[in-house]
């Protein structure tokens, strides 16, 4: 099955407002890994591909880690977007 591809795990680390969610959202968009309906729901703010909680959208921050998945011909990727603040 497809799971035999190499699996790479990526996590974005950094301070609050460094743009971790936006960077990873851009990664999904540029690799064609974000569905059109999800991109439309983002209304141009690609961080919303990860920041799915209502409070995250209202406050513009990542409150809790989110995981997204995509694959290329060579590998599968698990992408984790981590909060930039102490809980």
């Amino acid at each position, binding site marked *: *099955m*497809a*799971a035999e591809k190499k699996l790479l795990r990526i996590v974005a680390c950094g301070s609050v407002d460094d743009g971790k969610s936006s960077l990873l959202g851009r990664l999904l968009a540029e690799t064609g890994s974000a*569905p*059109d*309906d*999800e991109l439309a*729901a983002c209304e141009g703010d690609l961080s*919303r*591909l*990860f920041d*799915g*909680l*209502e409070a995250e*959208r209202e406050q513009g921050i990542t*409150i*809790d*880690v*989110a*995981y*997204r*998945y995509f*694959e290329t011909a060579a590998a599968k990727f*698990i992408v984790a977007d981590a909060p930039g603040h102490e*809980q």
Partner: protein
Amino acid sequence: MWKTDGLRQALDAGRFDAAFGGARRDEERVRAKERIFSFRAAGHRWDPKRQRPELWNLYNARKGGEESFRIFPLSNWTERDVWAYVAAEGIEVSELYFAAPRPTVERDGTLLMVEDDRLKLTAGERVEERWIRFRTLGCYPLSGAVESRATAIDALLEEMRLSRASERQGRLIDRDGAAAMERKKREGYF
């Protein structure tokens, strides 16, 4: 209702500490926040701020009397992983996942299968036969179909590779506001 109130009542009646589910993070962006051991407070309430770290494969199953867990072992699987596994193991699945000509009506941009007289047609709606299948199956008639000619798993996998629509796009209950899934999960939905 059945997947929230009915589920809560059943879990309470059985006094279950944990319930396993097949939800995957890849399905929806609120589910992308889920833990594998999802902690539920009294009343089966999900609070994303009260979830626990999951380092490597270590899970914290400590709980109080009224608290519980929903456990999602397939969290890191994608839709393609599921179908690859179904193919590898020869698992029998519902025919509705495969394309066939079916009586269909289009309502608000969603393709609904007209299985019987439970679906009341509104003015101007017309039943027509289309080749459709379901990527996801929920309560009837809240699951929309997709037009497809994929009648076998290989064709499904290829269709998924080319699709630009999310897996749960056909679930009407997800469209009840931007925070529909989050609200349902806070109420006890899987």
